């Protein structure tokens, strides 16, 4: 069960590591500053033999040391890139991390759209998913339920819309996918008509 996380071809998509884990949510730090995966994109990590899928729900870049405030340095620079060039230490003092909502997992080769038995491990690698994997993940739309039910400490509706837009882009018939997803949402949000309407508007 506790297999080591072996290197594979997907390592080209390796973007960071889990630094805080909960069953329904994880926080990962990116290896590269400012290179967080886009909002709503599908990422995965691993807990033993189980692959855990997450939907990126928000990212932030901040000082590594929370006690030290960042100060503006670009007053005399032409571009913002020049600020980093003039202060190479910044890349080491700043860090980008992102939160992902756990939207399912894969065990025994099957994608399951419910929470994994255990949260991801700290330092588990985080990968972005390729188109094929995203299609396999979105074959059933039940993952929407998990995202929509996430805690409201981020813009859940925005995440749902962004995620569906991104998943639609890898489908053979994106419009049909969006309509199916929209219908799924209408059932899910039958009591919240205005919320539904605003998500639907963002799906186009």
């Amino acid at each position, binding site marked *: 069960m506790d297999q080591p996380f072996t290197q594979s071809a997907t390592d080209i998509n390796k973007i960071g590591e889990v630094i805080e884990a909960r069953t329904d949510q994880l926080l990962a730090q990116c290896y590269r500053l400012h290179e967080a995966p886009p909002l709503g994109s599908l990422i995965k990590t691993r807990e033993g033999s189980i692959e855990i899928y997450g939907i990126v729900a928000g990212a932030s870049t901040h000082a590594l040391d929370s006690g030290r405030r960042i100060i503006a340095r670009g007053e005399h620079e032409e571009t913002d890139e020049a600020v980093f060039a003039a202060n190479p230490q910044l890349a080491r003092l700043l860090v980008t991390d992102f939160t992902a909502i756990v939207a399912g997992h894969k065990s025994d080769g099957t994608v399951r759209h419910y929470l994994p038995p255990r949260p991801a491990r700290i330092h588990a690698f985080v990968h972005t998913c390729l188109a094929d994997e995203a299609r396999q993940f979105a074959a059933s739309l039940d993952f929407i339920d998990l995202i929509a039910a996430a805690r409201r400490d981020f813009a859940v509706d925005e995440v749902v819309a962004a995620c569906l837009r991104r998943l639609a882009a890898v489908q053979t018939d994106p*419009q049909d996918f969006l*309509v199916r997803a*929209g*219908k799924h949402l*209408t059932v899910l949000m*039958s009591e919240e*008509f*205005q919320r539904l*309407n605003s998500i639907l*508007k963002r799906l186009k």
Partner: protein
Amino acid sequence: MNEQSEPQKRLGIVVTGSSAEGIGVKLDQDVSVEDIVLGRYVTIRGEKRRFFGMITQVSLESSNPQVPVMPPDISDPFISRVISGTTTYGRIQVLPMLTVGTDAASLLEGPQPVKTVPTHFSEVFQASQHDVETVFGKEGGSKFCIGTPLDMETKVCLNLEEFVKRSNGVFGKTGTGKTFLTRLLLIGILQSRAAVNLVFDMHSEYGWEAMNEKGYRVKGLKQHFPAKVQVFTLDEDSARRRKVSADSIVRIGYSEIEPEDIELLRQTLRLTEPAVQAAYQIAHKYGDPKWLETLFSPEVEENENFAKDLNIHESTYRNLRRGLETLRRFPFLVSGGEGNSVQRILESLDRGINVILEFGRFEDYTAYILVANLLSRRIYAKYREKVERALGDGLPKPHPLVITIEEAHRFLNPELCNQTIFGTIAREMRKYNVSLLVVDQRPSGIDPEIMSQLGTKIACLLDNEQDVDSVLAGVSGRSELKSVLARLENRQQALIFGHAVPMPVVVRTREYGSAESYRDLYASGKRTPEEGKPADDLWP
């Protein structure tokens, strides 16, 4: 309801149901409510049984009360695609009529009346041609095709053998095709030999040619079946003018008129109640057969003391005389003994020949009520006698007789129905093998008791609330059928329910009047009946 290769269109799934209010079906997303037609058939595949029912209501529903208040932006095709079928959806109400189990025993048993509802989420399909055929049977024998269900090519067949066992009614407001339907029924009865017809043809429409609504000539029964139909007429002049070969002229003797007949005519002759009593009094004094003759004789007319002698008030007497003068003006009423018209009609009926009595120019109710009632009374009496004799001697009963009367509310209204022979026939039904085919545009004018005795009712469009109520009184699924009945098209559509059909059915009535329709009728008549009786001898 059987397995078949024909693909069936799925309409939706059962979401609600009660034996009292029918079954609610949520339409599938790809089914447009605009394609749903009231009165169309559906089959429901329950867990253990299949159900056959009729669509009685279509409605638009939404899963959220906010939707009607704040409609979504449907100008966006994406949103409208998403919303339709989920937040907003179509719903139909189905009245289940028949059911058949899926095991071998119940398949053999055939469709049975519905006593339960299908389980939740049973699939609902549009009924296929095959389903309808299973329910309404194939043409041939006593099964007569009356039309096709809406939007279908299958034939809806009436079981004429069942049909003639009871009195039946054809209703509909004027211009909706009652006469056409009646003509079809008469032809069906004639072809299947289920019964012999006697038609009181008030407007001379059944025997010979008549005009249809579009102004075309359509053939009458005599033209189709000259050897099987005899036209009797009260008015030979009219027959001659219309170049109709009437087989016989009907004459009625004064002596055949009884005071009861006068009582029946009280309203049309505007007689007072005492005047009718006076008629009885005179009949009592002068003897039943002779009373009218006596009253019309010159001696009585000149005798000023006639009324006083009988203790009849002068004004009552005058009222009676004035009324009876109307009768005297009818040339078909002749002084003298009994005419032999009744005898001739009976002889024809005995030989299995259908009789159509044309009234020619005597289209007013007085003549119609008087003659129809008088002749029917005698014919019925003879039939009764024959049946009783047949019972006594163990002989076969006489061939069933169907008497067709138009403007039936004139005979069968609550005030008169106990006095006319038609009330008796309608009530006693098949005991004496005589039944009625009632044709009327005001069914609410007919006594409710009589209405309830009608076996099969065929209703064209009726838009008067009372008429609709009276036609549907006592039928299960009444309120559902009501909405169907009120939405029938003006012409060529009818709702049929009762003994001769396994379930209420809306039909587009069979074409009548074109050469093709005649060929079709001949063909269906020649279709060998299931019992194996050759029908060829019907054809001249």
